[in-house]
């Protein structure tokens, strides 16, 4: 029987391959990269008074190991900045990036 971390890695890969809905581009290690990610941008009534949104994009953590706050990326051709990094902290995990339109 496969080790749990192996199953976990398979599950993560399946999530990205089956649920990815966006092309994500960025620079990592000085090189341009393009991967598929799960993009979500639900409506958010900011502070109860302004129509807005809170966007996230989830990718495999190994795709962008040097991601940092304020890094630039595009999602389906739109420019964003990273304003939050939420790794799932598993050995072969996913990372959810909170992003804001640049």
């Amino acid at each position, binding site marked *: 029987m496969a080790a749990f971390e192996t199953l976990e890695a398979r599950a993560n890969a399946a999530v990205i391959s089956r649920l990815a809905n966006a092309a994500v581009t960025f620079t990592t290690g000085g090189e341009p990269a393009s991967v598929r990610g799960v993009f979500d941008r639900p409506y958010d009534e900011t502070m109860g008074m302004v129509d807005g949104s809170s966007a996230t994009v989830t990718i495999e953590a190994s795709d962008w190991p040097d991601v940092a706050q304020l890094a630039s990326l595009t999602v389906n051709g739109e420019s964003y900045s990273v*304003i939050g990094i939420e790794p799932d902290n598993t050995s072969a995990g996913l990372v959810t990036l909170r992003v804001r339109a640049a």
Partner: protein
Amino acid sequence: MSHVRAQIRDALATLLTGLTTTGSRVFKSRERALSASELPALLIHIDDEQIEHASIGRPRLQNRLAQGVVRVVSGVDGDTEIDAAIEEIETALVAGIDSVAHDARLVAISVERDAEASPPVTTATLVIEVEYRTREGAPDTRI
């Protein structure tokens, strides 16, 4: 005639319309959300009010202290826009205080931020104490 509270709200809106930062984006008693294209904006409300009776026989004289709230809503990062708007509001209030009530004074400013939203939102809430006087049964007439 409307209640003096409403007259004060109207007077505040008139006083604060046309400022450099917020221009004509001044909204009275607005409950629905602002859109990004409406920022920066001012929201004006008259909230709680204390009433003291200053005479015995009816109709009694009423000394009133109302809490006016002017909220600056900015849709850009940083404090520059908020600071500019506050400066303009304070200047306008002092210049036009007689049109609002017997007395009106700024008593508090509080600032809140949500920098993670799109657009990022910063608000400054200015609390203004407004004094006026009415006679019992005639809340639409300032005396």
